């Protein structure tokens, strides 16, 4: 018999990890595009 629940759980975990990585990308891009802090300029 085919069990559907483990397959749905596997797909949900895969999508969740990808969305989490997408969030990390947004954080990194925001960090990259931030103007340099005045205190850092010499």
């Amino acid at each position: 018999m085919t069990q559907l629940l483990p397959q749905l759980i596997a797909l949900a975990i895969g999508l969740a990890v990808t969305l989490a990585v997408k969030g990390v990308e947004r954080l990194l891009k925001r960090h990259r595009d931030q103007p340099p802090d005045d205190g850092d300029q010499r």
Partner: protein
Amino acid sequence: MSNTLGIPPRRLDAIYRVTSVLWAVYAAALAMSVYGSVLIAYADPGRYVVSAASVLIGLGMLVRLIAPRSRWTGWTLPLMGTVGVTAFVLSQFGADMAGGFTPARTGYGLLLLVPALIAYVHWIAERVVAHR
């Protein structure tokens, strides 16, 4: 195409071509492996979905050889990661259903998982570092 690494455009082009071929080969390998794996054999229709998505990624990677690259990275690599993690979890459920975890069954799952993590790193690195 400008990038923050100072890589000359022609060399960046070559890197794109090589990575496209490598990911296409891996996508084909993943499709065949998931389709035929004894551990994932219980997962109907999941294994067909995962295999079909892998074939789609492989075709996308072949187009990435010649097409505007960043656009084709944008959906192929996240899908590669999703498919890899899904295959890993399916294989571990399969190991449990097949009678329990063994080093070979866990190792097979990790062999599926590691390229998925590399796909995520490649995706984010290309988005954040290589392109402005």
